[in-house]
């Protein structure tokens, strides 16, 4: 698990119900483009809605729509979380 800079978590690490702003999408051009088409891109406010057991898909809300994406993709989306407290670093 990579520790991000202050207040930055991957979507996979975020807690359920936690909100934040997408900072960056690590990964190839293809992934960036597909997420971009779904309006998941740097600067967008996202809320993590749910996750599933055994590293299954993560669901997030962006504006009025919900998108489910694989755990591997969720690990590549870096989010600056709101209400950041230093002790919540690394919390899942």
């Amino acid at each position, binding site marked *: 698990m990579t520790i991000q800079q202050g207040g930055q978590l991957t979507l996979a690490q975020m807690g359920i119900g936690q909100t934040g702003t997408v900072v960056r999408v690590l990964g190839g051009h293809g992934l960036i483009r597909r997420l971009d088409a*779904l*309006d998941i891109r740097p600067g967008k406010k996202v809320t993590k809605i749910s996750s*599933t057991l*055994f*590293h*299954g898909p993560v669901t997030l809300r962006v504006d009025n729509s*919900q998108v489910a994406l694989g755990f591997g993709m969720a690990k590549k989306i870096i989010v600056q979380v709101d209400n950041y407290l230093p002790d919540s670093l690394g919390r899942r």
Partner: protein
Amino acid sequence: MMRILLVGNPNVGKSALFSRLTGTHIIASNYPGTTVGFTKGHLKLGAERVELIDIPGSYTIEPSSKAEEVAVEMLKDGNLIINVVDATNLERNLNLTLQLLERQTPVIVALNMWDDTRHRGINIDVAKLEELLEVPVVPTVGVTGQGIRELIRRLPEAKATKTTHTYSDGDERWTRVGNIVSQVQSLSHRHHTWYENLEDASNHPAGGVVIALLVLFATFWFIRLVGEGIISYITEPLFEWLWTPLLVRLSLALGPGSFWHSVLIGNLIEGKIDYFQSFGLISTGFYIPLAAVLPYIVSFYLALGILEDIGYLPRLAVLMDTIMHRMGLHGYAIIPTVLGFGCNVPAVMATRILESRKQRFIAATLISIGVPCAALNAMIIGLVGQQGGQYVAMVYGSLFLSWVIIGLILNRVVKGFNPELLVEIPPYRLPPWRVIGEKLWLRVSGFIKEALPIVLGTVLMVNILYIFGLFNAIANIAAPVLTGLWGLPRETIVALVIGFLRKDVAMGMLAPLALTAKELVISSTVLAMFFPCVATFVILARELGARDVLKAIGIMIAAAVIMGSLQNLVL
């Protein structure tokens, strides 16, 4: 003829709008040279009759799957674009709008789901949006038909704005979208509706599983209830009262045993026509597709249409994702799989929504092996069910087991990659009955048009082959596998061979053989698994290519031989 295209993101109520715009005559077809489906209809524009095409939903005109490539290709053939925009998701939808405006085709925007904006606390200044986009914007509600007249009235105002809307890259376009949204949209307080609470429940891991099991159970119960209901109250009485008296007269006129009697009416069972066993062209040949199978086609597609249009299937995809990954697929593969319970042909076509070749191969192979179509299901439930429900359960249990085990193996053996799930979860919506009704009609009439001739041709061929005694030769060749491994009487080979043409007819051929319950279980399991029907075979070959289709069929035959032998040992 002028051609209008309906273009928009997935899940924006495009089909409901399509159904409001067009009359009753809707055709489902495939884009030339591909298996990507779209629907086509007509509408009157003044005195002119114009063509309306419902383009498969897409988020962008930069395609990321084979299906989206075709959608983009189709854009070139239109004279006018109706861009359907989800008013509750303005930002993401406008990105596609701006991409469309960069092209030369005139555009008009239908601001759909307009009724939904209020309870979501969204206010949109339509006049301002129209001014900024420089094309007409009409608020619509596809499900109720609100705004449709206005949309049609303003179609001639649609225009191309190519010169003013060009963006050097995606980021610049998004900036412009953000700029427009901030000028036209304001948000206010909103209430949580009861179905949004349900949405949250089905997102919850445990709640999701419970809901999925309930949905699955309710769906099977519904399909069975409606299917059996139509059979016992409509199709069977109709045949009994209207058709049987005619056939009896014809039977007397032709004389049992004569050539034409054998072909048309078949054998009399205890002096009577038996629709399951006589096997004549116009006795069993009519009865199987129209009385036994059609009711299940109707009930299955009605259930599927409801599940599709309330927005449940993407949730099932999320729930199934972890399991499907073990089988070299991702959750979205559950959608073609579910389609396969109707007919394997569109199911194999729908594997195109999967991104990699490995996924498409595994999904298509598994569908052909473990997912019996509605016609076969109707016959399995009808025939095996006579012996008792536990035997029906054995057939489906064996098929499910094969599906899982072969999936686990293929995931390890097949080379290639298995990308991850990425899917929008649409909000739950009340079923748009009009759309569901039209879709049901398209699918049912498709069955009648495509399956009925093949069923009749198959029955006719069976009768002629019987008369010339050709089946004995085949039966002798296949006897070792059949009797040795599967413990089946040698006459069943005829049914299995016919299974290549139509599996429902093949099941019908098992009826007169007086098989034991165990033999019925084995023969129907093997019949479902060992080979695709000819229609599925053609589509498999087209989708997978010659080499892979041979591999797939090798897997099917091996799986059927093993599963049939196991059943023979265990049962």
